[in-house]
């Protein structure tokens, strides 16, 4: 147990280090360093200058949502972008596959370009024969899709390292990182899955554990400011929607006869269900609200964390017009708060993954009701 706490702390330190590397990386980009004593101000100022070159007035809302949103290439710093494949199907049924670097700067390729305004702002649009913009079927591997793949790979790496450990040293107690990992697995399996599902835990454990580790790894990756991380994955409705959908399917596929009976014909006075099916309607509604609540909870929590950090950093740019002193003070204030928020976010990332998995377990447990007695 003591070891476990130690490794959680080590992880904390690691993430803080990663965050710092990210911040330093951002500062290095500024190539015209002014000689100001405060290092942080130097850093921010240089970024500011670059920012000013691109856009005249700083628009926090646009910047924040640009950072939170998805994009076709993966912008690391400034103009350094990792191109990602764009896969689209036009309205005539033809498939197009090309690199996202062909679209940078508003270029048009194969009749497709990234819309700058309108309903499809920031998305790839094609132009049909009448000259109207339309949205093609877009299967592009965007920044988020790519990030999801990286998270999946890392999850696999972590989990298989545990499997390998078990295979090699069967009856040895794991130490160091392996011990922390096993502690988490053991906690989830013994105290959540087994205590809720009992005998059926072996059947559902793979799904629930995968769920937890994938969400947790994605959340942690989202906190790393540099390339393999930094994408706002779990703060994107599309991602949490899929997870909630999977849980929804698992819950309802494993629903017993009793579960469905409680939905359509619950044990309540006849008046509540016969002429007007009041309770059945509520119950059916409940079937859908459970996963939706899961989806919104994870999405909002992770988005919130990213948003707060971005807002705090944006404050620096907003206050920068009021002179060097204010800028300096704001910078110190904002950066320390942002680091603090990031630390809290590590905790939230863990807790939200845990909660998502815990509630999924409980919902599955509720769907596996057996007739009493």
């Amino acid at each position, binding site marked *: 147990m003591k070891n476990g706490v130690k490794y959680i702390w080590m992880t904390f330190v690691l993430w803080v280090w990663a965050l710092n590397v990210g911040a330093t990386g951002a500062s290095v980009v500024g190539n015209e360093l002014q000689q100001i004593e405060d290092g942080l101000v130097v850093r921010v100022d240089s970024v500011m200058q670059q920012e000013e070159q691109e856009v005249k007035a700083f628009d926090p809302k646009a910047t924040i*949502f640009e950072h*939170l*949103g*998805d994009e076709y290439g993966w912008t690391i710093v400034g103009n350094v972008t990792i191109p990602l494949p764009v*896969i689209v199907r036009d309205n005539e049924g033809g498939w197009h596959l090309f690199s996202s670097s062909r679209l940078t700067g508003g270029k048009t390729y194969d009749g497709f370009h990234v819309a700058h305004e309108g309903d499809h702002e*920031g*998305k790839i649009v094609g132009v049909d024969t009448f000259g109207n913009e339309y949205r093609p*079927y*877009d*299967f*592009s*591997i*965007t920044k*988020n*899709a790519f990030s*999801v*793949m990286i998270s*999946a790979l890392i*999850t*696999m790496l972590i*989990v*298989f390292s*545990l*499997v390998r450990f*078990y*295979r090699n040293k*069967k*009856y040895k107690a794991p130490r160091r990182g392996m011990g922390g990992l*096993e502690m988490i*697995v*053991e906690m989830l*399996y013994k105290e959540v899955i087994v205590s809720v599902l009992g005998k059926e835990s*072996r059947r559902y*454990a*793979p*799904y629930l*554990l*995968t769920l937890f*580790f*994938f969400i947790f790894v994605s959340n942690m990756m989202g906190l790393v400011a540099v390339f393999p991380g930094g994408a*706002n994955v779990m*703060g*994107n*409705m*599309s*991602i949490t*929607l*899929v*997870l909630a*959908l*999977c849980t929804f399917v698992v819950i309802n596929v494993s629903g017993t006869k009793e579960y469905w009976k409680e939905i359509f014909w619950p044990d309540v006075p006849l008046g509540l269900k016969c002429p007007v099916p009041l309770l059945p309607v509520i119950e059916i509604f409940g079937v859908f609200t459970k996963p939706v609540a899961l989806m919104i909870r994870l999405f909002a929590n992770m*988005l919130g964390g990213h948003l707060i950090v971005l807002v705090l950093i944006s404050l620096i740019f907003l206050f920068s017009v009021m002179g060097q002193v204010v800028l300096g003070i704001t910078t110190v204030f904002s950066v320390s708060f942002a680091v603090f928020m990031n630390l809290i976010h590590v905790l939230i990332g863990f807790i939200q993954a845990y909660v998502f998995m815990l509630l999924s377990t409980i919902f599955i447990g509720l769907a596996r009701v057996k007739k009493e007695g």
Partner: protein
Amino acid sequence: MSLFTPEFGLVFWMLVVFLILFGILAKYAWPAIVRMMDERADFIDKGVEYTREAKRDREKAQEEAKALLAEAHRQQLEVLQQTERLKREMIADARKAAENEAKQVREAANLSIEQSKREAELQLRKQVASLSLQIAEKVMRKDLATDKTQMEMIGRLLNELENKE
């Protein structure tokens, strides 16, 4: 804003990636991990149980050894006592046997002494009788023939003499 409206492409890729991840982990990783964890927990439980049993066995063995030792002591003591008793008995027996023997020997001796005494007496009597006859013969020479009645009378006389003694 694309954050709130699910993007079809992203949903597709996410679904694909998540299902593949789930498939791989569910097939190759989690069952193995869960099984190994259970196995190791069982192993540890068994180990603890085994140790406890071994401890109990050892205690039992120790107790048994102690009991055995006490029993041996007791037996030894008993044997010693028995030997002592046997020795005493043997000595007593031997003494008794010796006494008996001695008694028998004494009795036999007495008997033989008695017999020889009697024989000697008888012989003596015969000699005395014949001597007295010879003496009487010599004394009376004539009268006293070596008749039967005379011999009887002399025997009677001798008996009287003997009884007088």
